[in-house]
């Protein structure tokens, strides 16, 4: 664990007294301290292009009075700097007359080990694996024209000190390993991308030459795309494969169920609590408690232990995801969803691992049920306009379905739909729920946080496919 006051002229006791003095008349707030170490090693174009190490240290001081948030952050953990921040907060909240809410739930559960993945594997060994990846993929034939592979590792220590000196802390490991391969055949180029990761050591994912399966998957996607023909344009039936395609759930309903947008009534879901928003059989949860997953957290960035939050149960909207601020203003409790990218940012209610649970049907039944449509297996990213509810996501591997059979691969295309109504178009839910491989990053208000998604195969009766073939 990091000792934030070791090399500072500021003692913990002095910090506690500045915090208490600043927050006394506020409704909530805390000092958030963060020390992160991260590395990135990149192989590209046959060479180790980059090896970068970053160490980041800083604090963010937050005070909340009613709906107003005052925030100040700095890289310098010193008496002067904290006092200056305190003055800033006080000047914004001059007329605060609140009562500090000391209540914060406790839990002894931990969802990952206190390790530093960067130190667990030597630089030479990481470089060796990247070179092996390059050699392995380039041995697959002349059509392999470009290989990019990288390691990203991080250890982030956080400490939250609340009014009165209550302290909560967490040490979070995170790794990611990505491979991208570009193929060329008859002048046509296509890429395939795949990766794995989570809150464990590199070896948990890569031992026993496991990296080869990551390479094989990237290569397989690129090879499929080399044979792809133009995607169709227009409304049709869509079968989504299990796992990573659940970014549909993340975009279509996840963001719209975050507390802040619903408190402000700017989400298309704000007046739908308790109502039917999805077909029967559709249950969606947001879970921060799965061991070692990319989106899991022992405590959120306000110190609340995370939980498994049921968002939609058998088609009915049950809960929003809440941080402390929005929970208080909406007269409910935090779901442990308060997150921030780092100490430079304010807390927002965010997703963790968003999952649609398994149903009873098989993928084969779904494909059989489609006369004309597409089967989408792999995706790039997505985006949503939470107010109009319209969302998109980009296929990176998809096939046409003709008369109940999978046909030729089709080119990458954007799919667009309407969040509040799309889940009512789900007519079959598969029995094959799968987690994504651990590669997702969600962006909101300029802040990126690691997240996970999961779903079984699903059949959507009507969605617009943004191809070029009319």
């Amino acid at each position, binding site marked *: 664990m990091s000792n934030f006051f070791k*090399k500072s002229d500021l003692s913990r006791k002095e910090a506690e007294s500045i915090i208490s003095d600043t927050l006394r008349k506020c409704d909530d707030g805390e000092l958030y301290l963060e020390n992160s170490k991260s590395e990135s090693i990149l192989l590209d*174009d046959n*060479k*180790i292009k980059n*090896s*970068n*190490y*970053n*160490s*980041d*240290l800083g604090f963010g001081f937050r005070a909340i009075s009613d*709906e*107003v*948030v*005052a*925030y*100040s*952050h*700095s*890289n*310098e953990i010193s008496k002067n*700097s904290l006092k200056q921040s305190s003055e*800033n907060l006080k000047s*914004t909240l001059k007329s605060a007359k609140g009562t500090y809410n000391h209540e914060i739930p406790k839990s002894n559960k931990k969802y990952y080990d206190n390790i530093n993945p960067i130190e667990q594997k030597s*630089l*030479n060994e990481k*470089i060796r694996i990247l070179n092996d990846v390059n050699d392995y993929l380039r041995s697959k034939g002349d059509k392999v024209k*470009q290989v990019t592979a990288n390691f990203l590792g991080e250890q982030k220590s956080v400490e939250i000190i609340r009014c009165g000196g209550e302290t909560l802390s967490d040490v979070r490991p995170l790794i990611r390993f990505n491979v991208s391969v570009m193929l*060329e055949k008859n002048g*046509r180029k*296509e890429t395939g991308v795949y990766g794995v990761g989570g809150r464990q050591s590199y070896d948990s994912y890569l031992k026993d030459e496991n990296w080869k399966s990551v390479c094989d998957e990237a290569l397989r996607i690129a090879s499929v795309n080399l044979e792809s023909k133009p995607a169709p*344009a*227009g*409304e049709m039936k869509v079968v989504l494969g299990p796992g990573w395609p659940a970014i549909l759930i993340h975009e279509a309903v996840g963001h719209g169920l975050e507390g802040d947008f619903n408190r*402000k*009534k*700017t989400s298309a879901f704000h007046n739908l609590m308790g109502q039917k928003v999805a077909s029967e059989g559709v249950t969606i949860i947001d879970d921060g408690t799965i061991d070692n997953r990319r989106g899991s957290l022992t405590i959120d960035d306000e110190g609340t232990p995370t939980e498994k939050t049921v968002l939609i149960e058998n088609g009915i909207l049950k809960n929003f995801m809440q941080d402390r601020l929005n929970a208080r203003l909406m007269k409910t409790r935090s779901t442990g969803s308060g997150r921030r990218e780092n100490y430079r940012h*304010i807390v927002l209610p965010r997703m963790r691992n968003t999952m649609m649970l398994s149903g009873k049907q098989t993928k084969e039944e779904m494909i059989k049920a489609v006369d004309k449509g597409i089967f989408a297996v792999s995706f*790039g*990213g997505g*985006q949503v*306009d939470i*107010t*109009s509810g*319209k*969302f*998109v*996501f*980009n296929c990176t591997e998809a096939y046409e379905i003709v008369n109940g059979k999978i046909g030729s691969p089709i*080119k*990458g*295309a*954007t*799919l*667009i739909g309407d969040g509040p109504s799309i889940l009512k178009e789900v007519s079959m839910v598969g029995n094959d729920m799968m987690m994504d491989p651990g590669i997702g990053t969600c962006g909101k208000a300029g802040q990126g946080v690691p997240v996970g998604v999961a779903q079984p195969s699903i059949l959507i009766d009507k969605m*617009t496919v*943004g*191809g*070029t073939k*009319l």
Partner: protein
Amino acid sequence: MVKDQEFLEKKASYCLGLAKKLGATDSSVVVKNSVSETVNFRNSKLDESNRSDNLGISITTYIGKKKSSISSSNLLNDNLNILIEKCVETTKNTPEDEFNSLPDKDLLAKEVRDLDLYDDSHIANDQKIDYLKKLEAAASNDKKIVNTESSFTQNKSNFVLANSEGFCDGYKTSSFTASSVTVAKNEKSMERDYEYSSKCFLKDLDDAEKLGNLAANQTIRKLNPKKIGSEKIAIIFDKRIAKGILSTFASAISSSAISRGTSFLKDKINQKIFSDKINVFDKPDMLKGLGSRNFDSEGVKTDTLKLVDKGILKHYLIDTYNGKKLNLKSNGRCGGTSNLYFENGNTCFKDLLNSDSKSLYITETIGHGNNIVTGDYSVGATGFLVENGEFKYPINEITIAGNFKDMFQNITLANDLEFKYATNSPTMLIEGMVVAGK
């Protein structure tokens, strides 16, 4: 207050000195400080105040042709000692790359002109609040507006870039940014839109009421959208979307995409990639320009480039590393373009709307549907149906798709260029794209 040049230079030279002592044959360092203050309003009330003070340093060390880098926000010498030692150690263990090097000395910027990028004026939070009150009053005037969120940010930055070839320079920049996001609602629909202004100088910032009115009007007109059928149609891109097409062009001509072979514009130098009338400039020395700079992120001097001349691609965007690989000299584009723009076309906005009896005017796109390897483009879109030059009704839940290779050849530009962002385009018409809807 943002840290002064002397402090940053002292840190930079400390790092260069230490790197050399520890065995680096070359090194470069960037030290940056930025202080920004933001006030946010929501529904005409104070919502958030945010002060941010960011220090950062990044150091790259070379041992012959080996290279590695570190970065940190902790500038205490104790910490820098540990990090630089680690950096040099990592450099030793990193394989050689024959193209790794600092820039050629004769390409480094020699004189640094004052481009008028720093405004010393300070706008206190109370004054920001006054501006936002006026803005929000204008934005919420119409009853259909049910939520307003506005923001005012003052940012002051300073940096120093130094390397072991003796280069050491930097300068202050400032920006003042106001924005407003509004939500309009009626029985049938709820829509969101925004308006924004960002300037180097406080006095150049758009009037608060103008900004609020624009945000509200742009949102209200989106109410009651319809979905249209799938068809081949001419698309008119609003300036705020057209600039994104120019940005995609810029990533496709970056020397890294070209040298790696991952761009649909590889080997297209001196070939016609746009229609005849298209000229593209990247002009780093615009006074008060949002993308202006005296040198690139390696210290290489930057001249104005006419990237596209009468439709013909004339330059890639070249940095030192990829330049050496392509056997080309850096043209000072490490870190990308500066003030990038399409030169005005000769059609007025009204005539552009009238070019086709039916077209789509796009005001927003969502999704990341630009593939620079293949040139394929497919994104979600909202906008308006235009018939005989008139806006008929709002459209949403559609996608637009094409391939940049064809799209570039079919661009017609209006004559309404303005310098609102660092990358700018006049209103743009592209014939023959595919809309997917019902």
